[in-house]
């Protein structure tokens, strides 16, 4: 019985077909993540990527999943950099999203969906151009009492035992006063 259950739970052996199936699933997921909703376009792109992956040998990359995803990402990067004149892949992806032009990869420029260099993504920044100024603390004359207090605080910070003793003495005095008045 145990043997039978084990056999059922066993994952299928990682044959080449299974691994390529995983690669296809992953590429499909990635295309979906890019919001390529058209099944036809996704299928066409998937086929292109897998065919290219089967023929390509990239040093250090052997697993079909890694190979296929790398090819898809490199292709997207190339297409976007060509279409948007943007070498930063992250910025290019963002531009794609802002322009709502995902469905049109890779004919973005050809169809006039994104005009190179005129996209709002070029304005994406944490702020306008920096104009740095020095904002330095202005000293405030707090008087002799504050200076004395500062010195006292500093010396108390250096002497934790004295500080604790003072706290206890104050508490004892308060307790004694309370006792004295309520006795």
């Amino acid at each position: 019985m145990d043997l039978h259950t084990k056999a059922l739970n066993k994952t299928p052996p990682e044959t080449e077909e299974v691994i390529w199936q995983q690669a296809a699933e992953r590429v499909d997921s990635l295309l979906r993540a890019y919001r390529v909703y058209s099944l036809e376009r996704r299928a066409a792109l998937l086929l292109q990527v897998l065919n290219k992956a089967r023929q390509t040998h990239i040093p250090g990359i052997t697993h079909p999943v890694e190979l296929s995803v790398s090819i898809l990402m490199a292709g997207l990067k190339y297409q976007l950099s060509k279409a948007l004149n943007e070498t930063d892949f992250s910025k290019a992806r963002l531009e794609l999203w802002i322009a709502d032009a995902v469905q049109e990869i890779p004919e973005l420029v050809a169809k006039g969906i994104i005009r190179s260099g005129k996209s709002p993504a070029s304005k994406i920044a944490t702020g306008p151009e920096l104009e740095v100024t020095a904002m330095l603390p202005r000293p405030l004359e707090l008087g002799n009492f504050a200076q004395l207090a500062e010195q006292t605080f500093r010396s108390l910070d250096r002497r934790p035992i004295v500080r604790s003793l003072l706290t206890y003495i104050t508490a004892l005095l308060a307790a004694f006063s309370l006792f004295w008045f309520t006795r």
Partner: protein
Amino acid sequence: MHSSFSHQRIEKVVSNRRTKFFATFIIFYTVLVWSKADILWHLQMKPLEWIQLGLFAVLIFPLCIGFLTSLFGFILEIRGGDCFTITRLGNLPQVLNPEYLQSKTAIIMPVFNEDASIVFERIRVIYLSLERKGFLKNFDFFVLSDSNDPKCWLTEEIAWMELCRQLQAFGKIFYRKRRLPINKKSGNVADFCRRWGKRYDFMITLDADSLLEADAIVKLTVLMEKNPQVGIIQTAPTLVRGQSLFSRISQFVVSFYGRIFCSGLNYWQMANGMYWGHNAILRLAPFINHCHLPNLPGSVPFGGRILSHDFVEAALMQRAGYQVWLAYDIPGSYEEGPPTWIDFIKRDRRWCAGNLQHFWLLLSRELNSINRLHLLLGVLSYLTSPLWLCYIVVSFLQYLENLRGGNVATQSLIYRTFGQIGQELAPVVLFVVVISLLIIPRFLAWLANGLRVGWRIFGGSVRSLISVFLELLLSSLAAPVHMVMNSKFVVFTALGKSVSWLSQKRHCGQGSTWREAWDFHRSQFFLGFLILMMLYYHSGEFLPILVPMVLGLLLSVPLSVFSSRREVGDLFRKLGLFLTPEETRPSNLLLQFEKNVHMLESRKSNHDGSDNLDQITNAFIDPYLNAVHVVLLRRRGQRPQKINEHIQQLCQKLIVHGVESLQGRELTAVLQDAQAMEWLHHKIWSCPADQLHPSLRKALQKYNLLDPQPQSPLCR
């Protein structure tokens, strides 16, 4: 500059006004303290009597100032308003055209772990209202984030991107997240000033719960343009969107009593006003040059970094020779209050530490006397709580002493409590006068509102009067709890316990639970019970005097729960009680904002709530969310190999053991690294399934199950 606003004229008016106000104050205050002293002097002045007199003199000081401020404000309001406000003196044109504005203003909103969707909805309505009026070209918006919760941070980024996309507002609305939240809110604003302050003439500061009408923004900007001697103009924000009974009462108090108080405040402070940290406009050049906060003597919590920065910034601005005005007559400035009593008290904990720290500045020779008075009143607003407690204890001890001396039995109850001078009525009269200082301003406000704008917008004359009585009753019950809690906070501060920086709760939700209220208020309940037992067994005659206090402490738990409930707030609204003009006649901006928030909330309730859980994983996986995050991060140059290796190890750990395996700081380190974020995005997608942590595998599979919409808090 207009002749009516010349320095000489202002100085003359200020001098006259302050003479009148403070002369009245001195007479009033002296009479009260003298009366108390007289009552005590009729008996032998023993140490307890001296202590009582000293405490009375301190405690009565802010009460007198508050009462006279309301009284002067009342007189001004019934006489048609103050002629010497910044809006009347400052050459404000009747019609505001876009051509008037020549300046460039930054509208900044510092945020810390807030609900991003609500924050950006606020920006949306303000942006659109300015756009409709045609003034948009003069304003840029900045959301300045110090959020240390990664989920909040990532949500803010997406919300910002989505808002810019929807409004086509790239280059007009900016979002900046600091890597290290140094010096908290004041540091956040200072960081903005250092980076972009030079590009703008003025800066309008908003809190994460603020709203400003376009008209108010434009009026503030025009006033700043036309009056170069003005450094800060503070509006008087009214509380809005209260749902629980507590927040509805709070907004009624601000709306109903606030007007005469602000009017009175402006009467004596005029160009030496206060800055409350938000809903105000500041002149950037002097702010940058003169208002960066110095450190105080000693270390936190007594000294060190200034926690409560706004009052000090106003004082520094005035030291630099600029005026600070309270423009309480500019409508359309709103904020939200804490939704529950517990949240209110928690906020007080932070404010208490900040205000007590201002003690040092009272000693400064460089601040003017009005600034010092503001700071002193701030200190006293918390310090008076333990002093009131001491006063009650001293009174009780005095009573016991008299009881022991045998001179009590022949005297009346109130007499025994408040003085020892035979059969005269002086103690009773003094007691009534002191209580009146708290009660009379409420009725003056009722009268002034009726005469000024009519009671209808507050629910009618009778209903508004009932609201005043109810508010009086509830605030009397709440006062002892505030006294006990503030005393505790003062002691904690004195013992050196520092305050943690937490984001404020903005929505009442289901309100406080019984468990939460019990955990929070049980110490007050037990204290009330203890006092009750003590008085009952040992000195029952003292009990009636302390009934309001004991009752407030004993009822703190149910009061806290019921006042936090939305249903109770709604019930009072239906009864026409605690109504405010913002509820009876809301502006278009408020209506639009409410509509948008309602839409967001209904969307949230329809959602399965998985957004938040997946938000961090999405930042690694989703191509667009990852891109938004990476683009907003600053690229680092060369850095030590050790750091690179450490980040690499963290990334590997994340892939193999999942996001949960990283500690908070480790996760933040990864999220703050653009290269690591890009690498992780590529690596997670290209990693074979058996090498990925199940949570990441599941996140990738999600795209196979459904076609997800971009995860955005502002999706519409």
